[in-house]
């Protein structure tokens, strides 16, 4: 099965700076990777999906990269704001052709005013 490591449990960053979160995976190379945001007491909310043939994807202040050689995805939030404070999860298919996603444990981002 897929193993995922989000290498920071918590990340503190000053407002206005760029936050960079890392997701590393082992085992097989997935066809795509997803990022979710989770606020306390709520379910995760989908943010972005990036496919293996896409090096980079953007949505407003969010940018995701996907390096299948390094088996790594980077998630960037530019011009970070206190409202960006949340836990961010990466998720990958559990296996080739799987209907299931395996989630990382998440990185808790705190944006300090």
């Amino acid at each position, binding site marked *: *099965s897929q193993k995922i490591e989000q290498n920071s449990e918590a990340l503190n960053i000053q407002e206005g700076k760029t936050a960079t979160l890392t997701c590393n995976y082992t085992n097989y190379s997935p*066809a*795509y990777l*997803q990022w979710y945001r989770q606020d306390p*007491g*709520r*379910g*995760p*909310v*989908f943010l972005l*999906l990036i496919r293996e043939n896409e090096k980079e994807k953007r949505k407003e202040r969010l940018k995701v990269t996907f390096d299948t050689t390094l088996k790594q995805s980077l998630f960037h939030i530019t011009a970070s704001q206190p409202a960006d404070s949340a836990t961010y*999860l990466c*998720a990958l*298919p*559990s296996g080739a052709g*799987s*209907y*299931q*996603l*395996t*989630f*990382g*444990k*998440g990185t808790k981002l705190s944006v300090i005013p």
Partner: protein
Amino acid sequence: DAGITQSPRHKVTETGTPVTLRCHQTENHRYMYWYRQDPGHGLRLIHYSYGVKDTDKGEVSDGYSVSRSKTEDFLLTLESATSSQTSVYFCAISAQGGRDEQFFGPGTRLTVL
């Protein structure tokens, strides 16, 4: 927000009692999932469904059963609740089963005394 609800939202029960959690969707999505989320473990898949009456086990299925008799409802049953099943339970839905985003419900906080 995707039309997905969970009931009950909170439940306290005693060890050994049966418990059923309900997930209801109005999106007509084919795939439905039950996860549990615990500190230090992140989101873990319990069971999932890929159609009416079609279900399969996830990573942590022991002690849980599921049923899906119609597209919109996915039930999770703890036959005999144990304290180790104290957790927050999330239901999720997906149109394409892992090839697209999952939409999560608001969660059920279950405490087993």
